[in-house]
């Protein structure tokens, strides 16, 4: 099947008064219809900036998509597209569930009108009354009780999880081909979360919707997604199917990340494992492996040159000097729960 989205050499920087912040550094990936790609990684590693770049949603911030970046949606380059064409893609081509509901919902408009507005910009023929009926139906789908009352509420009158579900309703309103979901369920309790994920899965089965899912919850990642992409300091350091990442992770950052999942059997208030060291400085150019200062396996070469991605299968690859044919063989930590350790 053809890729619906192809991202090639995407780099995004913020030109700030302290210098250039290189938030996304030469990232390439693709997405097929009906497929779910999860992006995981440390807080601040560039997940949100990557997915916002896909729709050029930077508002008036000083973000620059660097020369040479390509974002091909059905073959058309979003990076170079005219504003009007871009506007047509937003909503009905690509829908977005944002990480911060409070900033993306309009505080001065009731949530019903906001959903209706979304529906009507992409379907000019629909009557207002039908659009309102649709809005009520959508709120019901995301599990909000008394939807016909709730459409009259302003965002501040809703709980955190209700606001998040309003955003999900807006994103799915126009049945887009791709839904980008940035931490879509952080404010939901586990039962409603499962219900919402099931709803999204239904969309995928019925309409072949593709998903890009950004989340810190590895429980969701391993259940909901097909492929996983691990980011560190604006780069993809490892990618693979969920089974490859679970059973055979190869990058030391992936190991550290998987090791941070709290283990069962831990006593209350015991110290939890966390990755030592400070997060990388995104102002620095990429001359070495950004994880090297925190890596237990770092070699002299890691601090001198940045590793290139090495393919391990059609779907699995990682950027780490340990994969070089001349590198010493190291064993991955025995504490990883799913890994096949000999």
């Amino acid at each position, binding site marked *: 099947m053809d890729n619906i989205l192809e991202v090639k050499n995407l780099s995004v920087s913020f030109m700030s008064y*302290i210098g250039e912040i290189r938030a996304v550094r030469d990232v390439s990936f693709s997405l097929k219809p009906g497929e779910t790609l999860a992006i*995981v990684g*440390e*807080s*601040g590693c560039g997940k*949100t*900036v990557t997915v916002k770049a896909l729709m050029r949603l930077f508002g008036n*911030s000083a973000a620059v998509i660097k020369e040479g970046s390509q974002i091909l949606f059905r073959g058309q380059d979003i990076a170079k597209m005219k504003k009007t064409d871009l506007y047509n893609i937003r909503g009905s081509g690509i829908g977005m569930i944002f*990480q*911060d509901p*409070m*900033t993306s919902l309009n505080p001065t408009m009731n949530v019903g009108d906001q959903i209706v507005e979304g529906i009507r910009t992409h379907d000019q023929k629909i009557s207002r009354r039908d659009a309102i009926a649709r809005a009520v139906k959508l709120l019901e789908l995301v599990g909000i*009780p*008394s939807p016909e*009352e709730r459409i009259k509420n302003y965002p501040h*009158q*809703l*709980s*955190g*999880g*209700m606001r998040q*579900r309003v955003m999900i309703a807006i994103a799915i309103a126009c049945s887009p081909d791709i839904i980008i979901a940035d*931490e879509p369920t*952080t*404010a939901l*309790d*586990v*039962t*409603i*979360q*499962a219900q919402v*994920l099931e709803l999204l*899965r239904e969309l995928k089965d019925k309409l072949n919707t593709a998903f890009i899912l950004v989340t*810190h*919850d*590895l*429980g*969701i990642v*391993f*259940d*909901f997604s097909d492929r996983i992409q691990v980011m560190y300091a604006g780069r993809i350091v490892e990618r693979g199917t969920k089974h490859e990442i*679970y059973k055979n992770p190869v990058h030391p950052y992936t190991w550290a*990340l998987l090791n*941070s*999942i*709290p283990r069962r059997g*831990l006593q*209350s*208030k*015991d*110290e*939890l*494992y*966390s*990755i030592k060291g*400070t*997060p990388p*400085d995104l102002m620095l150019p990429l001359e070495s492996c950004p994880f090297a200062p925190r890596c237990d396996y770092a070699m002299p070469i890691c601090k001198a040159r940045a590793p290139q991605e090495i393919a391990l299968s059609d779907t699995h690859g990682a950027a780490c000097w340990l994969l070089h044919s001349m590198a010493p063989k190291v064993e991955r930590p025995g504490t990883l*729960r*799913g890994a096949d350790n000999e």
Partner: protein
Amino acid sequence: MSENKVIFEAKNLKKYFPASGGKMVRAVDDVSFSISEGETFGLVGESGCGKTTCGRMLLGVYPPTEGEVLYRGRGLGTLDRHERMDFCKNVQMIFQDPYACLDPRMSIGSIIAEGLHVHFRLNQEETMKRVKEQLDRVGLTSDYASRFPHELSGGQRQRVGIARALAVEPRFIVCDEPIAALDVSIQAQIVNLMIQLQRELKLTYLFISHDLSMVRHISDRIGVMYLGSLVELAGNVVIHEKPLHPYTQALFSAIPIADPDHSWISDRIRLEGEIPSPLSAPPGCKFSSRCRMCTEECRKSPPPLREVEPGHFVACHRV
């Protein structure tokens, strides 16, 4: 625990918000609990069940419609000016929506310094030093002091909210989803920090979160809310291993498990039936419309919260 002083006591708290057509949103509907010094009280429950509203009433942000909050035995309304200042310093909140609570025109440094100026008389240099210490604690470098909220990632903003709350050295913190936007490693770092501060300084927390494993890890006791009411209350281990209320059982069956070969999404206990609304709650047990064990009695009379074992409270006719 028993010799410990009670810091907060919530007595029959109710909060009703007016809705259109003369209806009322019964966000919190007769909730009582107390929190002792040095303990972590976890609060979990369905989205929209009233957790944030409870936290805000403890802080005096929302006046209760009925009932009262006692802080060290005193009603919040009876504090004099001096006591009020003391309350503002000692009782802090980490907000659920990190962006909405950070002033977009202020730099991160001044956001964290604000409380320091009000409560401690520090000079410029000492203030900067404190700000840097706070940033470092939450895993941010001192460069972030000169940045603005919109220039940060979701998790970085959340950590600024944590740093701001910790900066004034409070005694009690309402933590409303404090780690929801953080990756697992930084979650661990923050939770370790909170536990360490609690050990060293005897801090007290109300910890609101949807992450049930983390709530279990950090809390001493856990309360489960459903549609404005407390339906179960017990020690952290008991509630995980021996939940009695059917809502608690369903909730704890849906904890995500990081394993591609087991689908927690499909294996969970499903809640069927109509989802009730705080605008028109059922007259009897609020969970009755979705409960598999529901009887006539459940539909008619609301079950009281009663102690079924020492320290284990549950509101269900069928237990």
